[in-house]
């Protein structure tokens, strides 16, 4: 990659500057990012084409441009849902990368540490009471934050040992799930069923309003995320070394943790619990880039890719029955978690 500025004497990195801004580009990360982006585009086109009426890829592209006989099917029926899947995946991927980086633990992800279940519980409460649907998002957010805080507090004991943290998360998740179920059983039948479907994690029937709710906070958080990309490098260091460099480790970790939980709770508030995407996306990106910690941008795209592909399979594999995308990600994610456990040095 030639950028016209003197290249940095570090292997695999290039310094690029545009006006007053200067970036350090990692060659491999950039290549992986572009590759994932291309794969995601292919998956989107495929997903737009497959369904009760098949639309050939070329026609999909034409329909996206507003041309040809399939404009309605592609643009109005299929595209909104896929946009939501993309956004949800992006948020989950980012959240997973942040959580894994700050806890230095490849097993950390919003659904393993109880964020999903906390958000799900709060959402169930909203659905089974008279509060309007407008409260769903804020409550889910609060529920996710509360559950995460609980897990952090409970597992803190002279620091945050990775596995104790994960196991406490699992326990909190189980208890929250049980509470949710009690609420569903106690609620009136229709509300209960609505909550149950919602909890399974699905993007069916969602569209631009949901996508907007997700995209606006993402844009607001973008500067923080850009900063986080650099901040995470020092957080991944040994605590003592980082402190020696003048970094306020605990505050920084706390801030990044809150951002991660907010991102995940937002995604869950719109699409329900889509399991394992955050876990898998961050790990996938980290392995592809061969970085020490999950790279943010690549994790985001990987999350979007995984969600769109999982939704495509869930939608079409057993047609006309549509599986909730969350069921599919759980079936695929469990073995992946097992594989991580077997491979990983403790």
């Amino acid at each position, binding site marked *: 990659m030639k950028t016209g500025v003197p290249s940095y004497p570090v292997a695999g990195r290039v310094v690029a500057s545009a006006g007053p801004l200067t970036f350090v580009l990692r060659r491999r990360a950039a290549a992986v990012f572009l590759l994932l982006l291309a794969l995601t585009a292919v998956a989107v086109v495929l997903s737009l084409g497959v369904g009760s009426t098949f639309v050939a890829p070329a026609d999909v592209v034409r329909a996206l441009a507003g041309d040809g006989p399939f404009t309605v099917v592609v643009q109005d029926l299929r595209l909104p849902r896929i946009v939501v899947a993309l956004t949800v995946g992006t948020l989950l991927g980012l959240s997973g990368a942040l959580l894994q980086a700050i806890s230095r633990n490849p097993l950390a992800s919003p659904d393993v540490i109880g964020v999903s279940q906390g958000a799900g519980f709060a959402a169930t409460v909203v659905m089974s009471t008279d509060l309007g649907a407008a409260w769903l998002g804020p409550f889910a957010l609060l529920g996710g934050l509360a559950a995460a805080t609980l897990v952090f507090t409970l597992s803190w004991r002279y620091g945050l040992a990775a596995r*104790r943290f994960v*196991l406490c998360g699992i*326990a909190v998740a*189980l208890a929250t799930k049980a509470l949710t179920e009690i609420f569903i*059983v106690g609620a009136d039948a229709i509300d209960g069923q609505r909550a149950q479907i919602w909890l399974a994690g699905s993007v069916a029937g969602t569209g631009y309003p949901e996508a907007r709710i997700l995209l606006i906070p993402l844009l607001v958080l973008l500067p923080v995320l850009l900063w986080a990309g650099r901040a995470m490098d020092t957080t991944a260091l040994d605590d003592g070394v980082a402190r020696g460099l003048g970094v306020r480790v605990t505050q920084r970790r706390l801030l990044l943790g809150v951002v991660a939980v907010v991102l995940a709770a937002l995604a869950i508030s719109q699409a329900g619990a889509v399991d394992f995407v955050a876990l898998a996306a961050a790990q996938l990106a980290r392995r592809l880039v061969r970085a020490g910690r999950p790279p943010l941008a690549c994790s985001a795209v990987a999350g979007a890719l995984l969600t769109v592909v999982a939704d495509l399979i869930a939608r079409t594999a057993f047609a006309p029955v549509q*599986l909730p995308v969350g069921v599919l990600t759980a079936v695929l994610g469990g073995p992946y978690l097992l594989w991580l456990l*077997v491979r*990983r040095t403790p």
Partner: protein
Amino acid sequence: MRTNRRLAVLAGSAVLLAATVLLSLAAGSRGIAPGHVLQVLLRPDDSDASAILWSLRVPRTIIGIAVGAGLATAGVLMQALTRNPLADPRIMGVSSGASLGVVAAINIFGMTTLPGYIWFGVAGAALAGTFVYALAARTRDGASPVTLALAGTALDASLTGVVIGVLTVNVKTFDQYRFWAVGSLSGRPIEVALWVLPFMVSGIVLAFGVAGGLDAIALGDDVARGLGRNVGRVRLTAAVAAIVLTGAAVAAAGPIGFVGLALPHLARGLVGAHHRWVMAVSLLLGPTLLLGADVIGRVVVPPAEVRAGIITALVGAPFLILLVRRGRTVTA
């Protein structure tokens, strides 16, 4: 620890169990006064109370006793076998293996009755247990408590996902499975209890048979060998007993967590580490816990019922956190 004290604990547990059984027979959407319960139990008549008692609450209570005893004993066996304080049929993924076995029995082999389910449940439990243990043993730090628990939880997540997936796709299976109602004691005919009992009894007899062997193994394999124990045979017998108990319990009531986790710890606290005593106390308190959870589930959001497995999860999760926080058991 003195035998007198242990006997006192045993007697106290028995009284507690009797009280819970009475409560389980009396409580529900139509309450029956305990005095009346005893009267109708001894002399069935044509009253509504008698019909409710004999057709609904007696089978439910018997199944609760059988499943609670089975799960608690399975927990004792698993914790002894793996030397792991976090071992539990649910956490180790054995329960979800059993439920997948049951779903396979319904979906692939068209089974419709419990006698068919049970064997599939046991087979599923055996496969899942072996898988989790083999997998955890392959990790860098061996089958350590937390690794085993994490591997089991991960397997539980994906097997549960498969079960839900199959149920979403196949309406007929869903209908039967719903009837089988996961993690619940309600709505089962008395025959279910009769079919499960032989499995439970044989599992529990096996468990008591190897109790002495497990005491020896707790001292380390070499010491056990020095004491003249056949370590391999003790392990195998205990594993078979644990799997039979879990498989039959899940086939009867679906996966119910935490009974097997909490009870052995409680029992050890009360009567010390001898497995024979721990098993005896667990045998009495396991049904007490499960029936208690079932009764709470009946009254917490009337007129609906919450599954017993949900209440045990709610009670058991704080317990799991407590165990995890105790640094001694979990160092990793």
